[in-house]
């Protein structure tokens, strides 16, 4: 693991944003670690440091706009945008209007805190396209896809840290076998956009 990844892992670990345990994910799958970046982002100085670490890997990105599709990604998206001359959009008015159009030739970098299945990124890309912008790529702080890599659906994906999630069915779950109780994963969370 490189210096950048290990610093990010420390930031996430020390703030409790990366937790190991026994959790139930969507579709009833069990997982043994969970990332919620708002635990890290509540400390502005650490959020800024995390954004710096991600910014350092954004080599060759050709964008004019940052779009953050979820509330938890707002601080990260904003911090990245302010290190550039890019504009910044959030999933709020007026951008949510069906009639909204991005300025001509807008190239968007979609910034999210975590990618797991990619549903949120896929939705954000479609959403930007429908409003006249081209998506130049994706930047995520933590890539939880099993294989990781620098690509998502034919576009470049930059990530600060690859921390793959391992999912188990309840029958195969080692934590269930050890009798560890399941911690709820913030059941209040509203669905992400889409």
């Amino acid at each position, binding site marked *: 693991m490189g210096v950048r990844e290990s610093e990010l892992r420390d930031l996430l670990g020390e703030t409790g944003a990366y937790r190991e345990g026994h959790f139930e994910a969507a579709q009833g799958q069990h997982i043994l670690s969970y990332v*919620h970046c708002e635990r890290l982002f509540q400390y*502005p100085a650490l959020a800024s440091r995390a954004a710096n670490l991600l910014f350092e890997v954004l080599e060759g990105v050709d964008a004019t706009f940052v779009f953050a599709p979820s509330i938890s990604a*707002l601080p990260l998206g904003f911090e990245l945008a302010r290190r550039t001359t890019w*504009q*910044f959009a959030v999933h709020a008015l007026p951008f949510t209007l069906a009639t909204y159009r991005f300025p001509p030739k807008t190239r968007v970098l979609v910034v999210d805190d975590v990618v797991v299945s990619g549903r949120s990124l896929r939705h954000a890309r479609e959403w930007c396209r429908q409003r006249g912008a081209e998506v130049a790529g994706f930047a995520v702080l933590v890539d939880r896809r099993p294989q990781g890599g620098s690509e998502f659906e034919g576009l470049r994906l930059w990530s600060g840290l690859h921390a793959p999630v391992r999912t188990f069915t309840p029958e195969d779950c080692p934590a269930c076998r050890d009798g560890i109780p399941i911690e709820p994963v913030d059941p*209040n969370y509203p669905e992400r956009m889409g």
Partner: protein
Amino acid sequence: MSQDLSRDKILKMYEDTGAMRTGHFLLAAGGHTDRFFQSATVMQFPDSARQLGECIAGLWGDVSIDFVIGPAMGGVILAAITAQFMGVRALFAEKDASGSGMFIRPGMTVRDGERFLAVEDVVTTGTSVMKAIRAAEAAGGVCVGVSAVIDRNEGETPFPYPYRPLTSLRVLTYDPDDCPLCQRGVPLEKI
């Protein structure tokens, strides 16, 4: 305070970025109005957004504050920037499953007795920022003040806490049954 933003400068910031719209709008709270502020349009320019947050931080130099909270979506970035300038934590509250109140994600920290500032981009009735305040109070926090970029509330202060908006504006909100824009037949836009 490193800078001061007059009302004219703030309004110009909203106007220049297209964040102040005129027409005939249905507000979330049910009233009609002829002017509407879309703060996300200002917030997309990080330098402008940071100026607003820095000014709000400057209004509270005399008060000890442990964290800043803002209601989603309008208050999230503003809370983050304000907190950054104050050197304290930034939290946000979002609508709960019932849609009538707000909650704070369990991951964010509120310790018993911590003193907080609540911020919002535009305050009309103050309902949304009050929900964020209630959520933080329920978690053990003590509200020591409220700030808004633009206060468009008419008349009395809508909060039982010290209230320091960056600027106040009289913008009339009409009862839907007695709206001159409706009477003139101006098409109503839902926002």
